[in-house]
C-alpha cells in the first residue's frame, strides 16, 4: 500500500510551475499521487468504476484548487484530505445510495460493493513469495469489499491511513465512539468473512481462539 508521498511542492517550486499552468508540473503531481489516490478511492468505494471516476475528480479538484493550498501542513495531507472528502461525498450522495440499493434489489452485481469484482493484479515485479501471498490478499480484498460502506471506510481510514477516531467521527458528522464501534464491527465482520474464505492457514484459526 503506497503512502502519500510527502512532496514539498513549495521548496521544489513545483507548485509555482503548476500554478502557472505548466503541464509537466501538473503531470508530475499527478504521477506522484496517482497510486495512493486511486488505491484510497478503490478501497473506500469498492466499486471499481465509481472509484476510478472519483479518483479522476480528485485530481481535477487538486489542480483547480491548487491556489487554495496555503502551505500549512504537508501537500500530501492536503491531497489526501481532498481524496477522502470526495470519496465520502460519493458514499453519502443520496443518488449513489439509492443506486446501490437498487442494484441490490435488481441483483445487479456491478452496482453493489463486494460482489466479487476483480481485485488488482499484483505488480508484475512481484516475487514468488508475493505471488504465494496474493491468494491471501485476494480473500482479504474480497472480505473488505463485502463490508458495509461505513465500516469499510472506517477500517481503512483508521487502520491503514492512520486517522484518529476523533477525525473519522468528525468526517462522518459523528463522535469518536461512532468510529470505534464501526471499527470493531468491521474487524468482527472481516474475521467471519476470512474464516469462511478459509484464509490464514499460516495463522492460528480464529475459531480456535474464541
Amino acid at each position: 500500500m503506497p503512502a502519500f508521498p510527502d512532496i514539498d511542492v513549495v521548496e521544489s517550486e513545483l507548485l509555482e510551475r503548476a500554478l502557472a499552468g505548466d503541464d509537466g508540473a501538473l503531470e508530475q503531481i499527478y504521477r506522484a499521487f496517482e497510486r495512493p489516490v486511486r488505491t484510497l478511492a478503490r478501497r473506500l468505494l469498492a466499486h471499481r468504476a465509481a472509484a476510478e471516476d472519483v479518483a479522476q475528480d480528485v485530481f481535477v479538484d487538486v489542480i483547480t484548487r491548487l491556489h487554495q493550498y496555503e502551505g500549512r501542513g504537508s501537500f500530501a495531507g492536503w491531497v489526501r484530505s481532498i481524496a477522502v472528502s470526495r470519496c465520502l461525498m460519493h458514499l453519502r450522495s443520496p443518488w449513489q445510495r439509492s443506486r446501490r440499493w437498487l442494484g441490490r434489489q435488481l441483483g445487479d452485481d456491478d452496482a453493489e460493493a463486494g460482489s466479487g469484482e476483480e481485485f488488482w493484479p499484483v505488480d508484475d515485479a512481484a516475487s514468488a513469495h508475493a505471488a504465494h501471498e496474493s491468494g491471501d490478499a485476494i480473500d482479504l480484498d474480497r472480505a473488505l469489499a463485502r463490508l458495509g460502506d461505513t465500516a469499510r471506510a472506517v477500517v481503512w481510514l483508521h487502520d491503514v491511513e492512520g486517522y484518529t477516531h476523533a477525525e473519522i467521527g468528525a468526517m462522518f458528522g459523528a463522535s469518536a465512539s461512532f468510529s470505534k464501534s464501526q471499527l470493531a464491527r468491521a474487524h468482527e465482520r472481516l474475521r467471519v468473512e476470512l474464516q469462511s474464505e478459509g484464509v490464514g492457514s499460516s495463522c492460528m484459526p480464529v475459531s480456535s481462539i474464541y
Partner: protein
Amino acid sequence: MHARVEHLLSLRDGEPVDAAVRAHVESCTECTAALAETSRLRARLRTLPSAPPDERGWSRVRERLAARVRRARTRARFDRAAVAASLAVIAAAVAWRVSDAPATHGDATAARLVAPLTAQEAIALDRVAQLRTQSAALEDALALLGERPAVQRAGTAMPIDTLEAQVQWIDHRISASGDAFEAEQLWRERVDAMNTLVRLRYVEAQPIAM
C-alpha cells in the same frame, strides 16, 4: 468473560482501557491471541496491493479539466445571453407598462409599476422550466408503470409511500413558493424524489419470485 473487540482494538492502539479489562487480557491466553489477531489483520490490510498506474489516467484527467473549462465557458455565454434576454424583457415590460399607464402618472410612476426581473431570477426561471420538463417526463414514466401491484414488496412499499408523501408536500410548497430561487430549489427536490420513486416503482413492478 472475555474482552470485547472494541476493548482489544483500544489496547492495540494504546488507548485508555479499563484496568480490569487490561488485566484480564494480559492473563487470558485467548484474549491475548485475539489481540494479536487484530494487529495481524491491520498489518495485512496495510500490505494489500495498491492500484497499478493507469497509462491513460493523466490524459483522462486532462480531458476532464478541458470539459470543465468548456462547461464554464458555456455557462458564462449562457449567463450573458440570459442577462441580455432579461434586459430585453425588462425593456419590453417597461415599454408596455409605460404605454399602458395613464399619461398623468409620468415616466417615473410607470417605472415604479414594473418589478424588474434580475439576471439571476431569469436564469432561475429558465432552470425551473427545465426541471418542470424533467418532472413531467418522470410523471409519464410513472404512468407507464400503471397501478401498484396488489402484493407489494416489503422492501419497497414503505419507501414508495414515503416518497409519494414527500412529492405531495413538495407540490404544496411549490404552490406557496414566493420567488424564482425557492421555486428552482423545490423543483429540483421534486425531480430527485420523482427519480427515486420511478426506480422504486420499477422494482416493485417486477414479479415476486415464489
